[in-house]
């Protein structure tokens, strides 16, 4: 069943990436949701205890978050959908779309730790995409591009606000997900690995983003650069997962 759902999902993502088709995005996200449900329903349990499985879940989160804000920010799809299609292929290559062997983690732990951390990362991805859009749009204003008003794009204030909201929702999720993971780690008497350390640094950067906004008025281009720095750390953590966090 998982195999049957993978190919239509990839097809829809591919179509959405190339053809910029609204129905394909929705159908792709629905296919991916069905795939995750099938994976979860198998008695072997959630396959998120592997790096590829968590990548599969992460990309679904990113597409879902994007669909939630898609209407006023359609241009973001040009960045999100090709990435989603590519990462789905990577997740499949790593076995993340199949069922695989049963994880030794409980489903509750996987939902709380993997689910929350990945949901937070998806929110940070959106914040970074919006921030990149901000920097591009702000540069056009600074260069006084004559085409600036030809097509209505979201205003700088709107982009800035959306990025900060995405971070404000994502940071608590990351905090809880991390706390659950660290509590389990300490309970098992294990040590903090490099990925956990990098995730803590990531948490610090995004926390600083929110604190500086509230106390020092961090906003605009500077806030966008901090968001991109935070996202760079998210990428580092994601790439380091297979090597340093999953055993």
């Amino acid at each position, binding site marked *: 069943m998982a195999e049957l759902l993978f190919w239509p999902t990839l097809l829809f993502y591919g179509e959405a990436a190339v053809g910029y088709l609204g129905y394909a995005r929705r159908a792709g996200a629905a296919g991916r949701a069905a795939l995750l449900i099938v994976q979860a329903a198998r008695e072997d349990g959630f396959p998120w205890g592997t790096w590829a499985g968590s990548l599969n879940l992460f990309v679904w989160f990113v597409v879902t978050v994007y669909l939630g804000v898609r209407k006023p920010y359609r241009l973001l799809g040009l960045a999100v959908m090709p990435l989603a299609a590519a990462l789905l292929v990577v997740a499949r290559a790593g076995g993340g779309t199949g069922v695989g062997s049963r994880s030794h983690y409980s489903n509750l732990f996987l939902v709380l730790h993997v689910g929350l951390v990945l949901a937070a990362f998806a929110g940070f991805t959106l914040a970074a995409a919006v921030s990149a859009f901000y920097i591009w749009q702000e540069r056009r204003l600074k260069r*006084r591009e004559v085409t600036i008003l*030809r097509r209505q794009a979201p205003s700088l204030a709107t982009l800035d606000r959306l990025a900060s909201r995405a971070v404000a929702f994502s940071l608590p999720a990351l905090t809880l997900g991390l706390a659950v993971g660290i509590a389990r780690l300490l309970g098992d008497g294990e040590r903090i690995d490099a990925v956990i350390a990098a995730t803590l640094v990531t948490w610090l950067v995004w926390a600083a983003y929110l604190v500086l906004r509230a106390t020092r008025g961090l*906003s*605009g281009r*500077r806030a966008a650069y901090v968001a991109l720095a935070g996202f760079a750390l998210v990428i580092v953590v994601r790439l380091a997962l297979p090597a340093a966090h999953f055993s």
Partner: protein
Amino acid sequence: MRLVLVGTSHHHAPVELRERVALGHDAAAELAKRLAATGGEAVCLSTCNRTELYVAAPDVDAAERAAVAALAELEPDVEPALYRLRDHAAALHLFRVAAGLDSLVPGEGEILGQVRAAHEAGTTGALLDRVFRQALHAGRKVRAQTAIGEAPASVSSAAGALAEQVFGDLDGCSILLVGAGKISEQAARSLLSRRAKIAFVANRTLDHAAGLAARFGAEPLPLDRLDEQLATTDVVVSSTSAPGYVLDAATVERALRARRGRQLLLIDLAVPRDLDPAIHDLDGCYLYDIDDLQAIVSETLVGRRGEAERAEAIVAAESEKFREWQASLDVVPAIMSLRARAEEIRESELRKAEGLLGRLDDSQRKAVEAITAQIVNKLLHLPTVRMKQAAAAADGVIYAEAVRHLFGLGEDER
């Protein structure tokens, strides 16, 4: 009924002539009423760029003469500048007008409301009502399906659109006007229409500032206290006749510290410039002068002209639908005669069979009535549809004549 249009516009007449035939709402409605008094229909569309009379009447030549006379009565010299269009050409012209394609600035949106107002004030019947409704539909469709009206077409509206690009919804945005002249006022009105608030008007002469400030419910400010309000203002619009800068980069930089990262948009409409160009280099500041705005407007007008091609296609398709509808009117009398003749035969045959039908009870009699009516309807359905189709393809009159001849329809209807 046929349609005739007589009018003049910015394409044919200078403003000195146009203003003499321009009519207010009530006068336009009165003229339409007068032209329609002889059994026709009339609408007068009068804006700053055009005065046009749309008349529907059986005698199209007489209707045209009456419309020309009505405009010549307002201004005898207008006659050489008048254009006269009939039927489909007149309808197509109205569709283009409603879509903003005949406007000075292609795609401007005000004309759609003016066409609607003219329609409502006119004396309309089936033909003019239909053509105006369809023109309004075409105008709305063009605005919805093309980007022809999206980009600003004037310096002041470009300033408003730029402010929206920075701040989004301008509701609650605070504007500081520097200079109390006409240009400042125009820019202020554009920002006000986008729900911004004119908070301060600064001017070298405080009395002048107070005059303009009172109109906008703003606070007047002497020029030397400009820097005090920069911390709380979102948009500065400047257009004084000062020989040097009224605001330098160092002053703005000091104000930025108190703004806690909030952006500042500065619009300099003055020549020589009022605002130090170095302000644009400051973080979070965007300074646009008159040349920058004019370059944006020129570019958007090029974009509008590109969209105009798509709009023309929409207008052509919509006016074709109207033409088909109007052409179908040619065969309506023949269709009605045919149906009347068939009904006459049906009723006559039923009367002849009265003796036989007398033995039937009420429900059986009603069934016979219904069956015979159904036979007539089914028999005439296809010829009716075919005649309407033929009318749309310009063969309607030939088909109508053939039907009259074949069924011996009344000579008095010819």
